[in-house]
């Protein structure tokens, strides 16, 4: 499969040529123009978290770079590599502490993934550490992290209430002095993402990677691939780094059992997100996929989603947010029940009475339940004013006294 790189800037085209060279071993790019904006190349590569791959490919290809360009990329590569080693050291320290307290923990992404996929910490950028523990171990794990110098960020006082409410999947902690960021996960995906991956199962399938000569537990091969695809989908495939990781997994892990992966994906209802991720990895990174997957990754629904993601990436546009993001989630799932669950999770909070409802009408305690129908009436009025009425107005060609389509922060939602 060949990607159509038309439409992207020459800087993005160069970054993609470097990415493809990493996987295919063949560097193919137009000659580098003297007007190449290297700061832009660096910005694109940094933004997508693939400076090491771009640096390694360009230097391996023997591209005659200007001194400025070489130094720019080299300095950024060194910074990224130093950071990866630093985080790896910290991960080893935290796992030692968790092991001492007998808390089963799995390292997600970060240095564990760099070691497992690339065999080199320096080839993958690391911005934080992700540690997965069982839900009932969040408290003890939080204590361990506190003892290691971490405090919950954003004023969160522990993860307890969030865990109970099932609203989130992780708590962010920051090292008080060194500034390391750690995400303590009790689930792999947000509840709104409707991907229930059971910790016991993940733990049973775990594998050990050696990081800086120390053993660290991480997800098994098949779980690694599925969670990478889920993570990329969760962010609407907005970064080349995640697509590169998937390409790297397919090309560097010969032990992947595709039969098990497909069966697991089918059971979890995440086959389509797997196929979209694999199709993107094949198109953008130039990797070959197993023959048995060809029909699945070429289906119309997969291709359409792929095309949209590729356009967003090539034009360096922002990934979808809010409703569009939810629609992307829905389109990335094949089972009706998962689609419904995602839709309800999105709509649910909108149906709950908010502070504006309470400010408009003040009801006594015994009549609080009336806020729910009141909320529905307000939503109906909002939809009428913002969507239905303008359509009727334009259909009947009525004079427009007010531009109903103008959005202000106050009127963006009821």
């Amino acid at each position, binding site marked *: 499969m060949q990607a159509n790189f038309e439409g992207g800037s020459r800087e993005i085209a160069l970054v993609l040529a470097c990415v493809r060279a990493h996987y295919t071993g063949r560097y193919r790019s137009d000659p580098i123009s003297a007007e190449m904006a290297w700061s832009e190349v660096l910005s694109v590569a940094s933004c997508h978290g693939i400076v090491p791959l771009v640096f*390694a490919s360009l*230097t*391996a290809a023997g591209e005659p770079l200007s*001194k400025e360009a*070489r130094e720019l990329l*080299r*300095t950024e*590569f*060194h*910074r990224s*590599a*130093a*950071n990866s*080693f*630093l985080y790896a*050291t*910290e991960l080893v*320290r935290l796992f030692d502490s968790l092991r001492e307290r007998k808390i089963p923990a799995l390292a997600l992404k970060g240095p564990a993934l760099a070691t497992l996929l690339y065999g*080199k*910490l*320096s*080839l993958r950028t690391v911005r934080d550490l992700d540690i997965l523990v069982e839900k009932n171990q969040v408290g003890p794990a939080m204590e361990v992290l506190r003892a*290691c*110098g971490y405090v919950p960020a954003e004023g969160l006082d522990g993860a307890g209430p969030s865990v109970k409410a099932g609203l989130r999947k992780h708590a962010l902690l920051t*090292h*008080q*002095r*060194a*500034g*390391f960021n750690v995400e303590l996960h009790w689930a792999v995906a947000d509840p709104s993402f409707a991907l229930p991956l059971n910790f016991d199962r993940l733990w049973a399938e775990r594998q050990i990677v050696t990081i*800086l*000569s120390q053993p660290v537990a991480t997800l098994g091969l098949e779980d690694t691939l599925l969670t990478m695809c889920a993570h990329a989908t969760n962010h609407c495939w907005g970064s080349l780094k995640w697509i590169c990781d998937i390409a790297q997994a397919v090309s560097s892990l010969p032990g992947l059992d595709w039969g098990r992966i497909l069966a697991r994906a089918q059971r979890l209802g995440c086959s389509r997100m797997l196929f979209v991720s694999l199709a993107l990895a094949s198109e953008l990174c130039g990797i070959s996929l197993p023959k048995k997957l060809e029909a699945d990754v070429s289906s119309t629904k997969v291709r359409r989603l792929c095309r949209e993601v590729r356009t967003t990436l090539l034009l360096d546009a922002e990934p979808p947010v809010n409703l569009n993001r939810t629609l992307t989630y829905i389109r990335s799932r094949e089972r009706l029940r998962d689609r419904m669950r995602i839709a309800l999770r999105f709509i649910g909070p909108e149906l709950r009475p908010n502070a504006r409802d309470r400010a408009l009408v003040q009801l006594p305690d015994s009549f609080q339940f009336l806020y729910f129908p009141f909320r529905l009436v307000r939503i109906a009025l909002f939809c009428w004013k913002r969507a239905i009425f303008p359509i009727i107005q334009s259909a009947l060609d009525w004079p427009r006294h007010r531009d109903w389509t103008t959005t202000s922060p106050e009127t963006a939602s009821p």
Partner: protein
Amino acid sequence: MENSSLRPVARQANLTIEELPTELVVYDHLRNSMHCLNRSTSFVWRLCDGQTTIEQIGARLPEVDLPAHLDIVRQALKTLDKAHLLVGKPQFAESGLPTRRQLVHRLGLAAGSAAALLPAIASATAPTPTMAKSGDKDKKPKKPKKNGQDD
């Protein structure tokens, strides 16, 4: 002046080594520091096996497109020693070493290519968690500083 039969030894303990197409990335567990050795430095470092003399190392420099010149080996050993990547201190008089600029001039290398060819190590030191824990002032990963590229 040092003995040209000196046999330097590369440090191997407590290091993680990663090889890239044009660089050798070395992470020092003891000092929490990372070094990126360019092609000529990593070539010299790999030959520091305690058996090969610096004269023999010098004779093999053309393999990395450099002239067989002992000063290049000494320059590499100096930067390697500074980065704590050698066992023991190589015994040579640093005062006799030409500067990088003098070396470029002496070897007749083009100024642009010299930076890529001559021995150089870029190092970055990260704060250890212990340092952070002991109440040291805030330290984040430092911008890599060039080691061995100054005159």
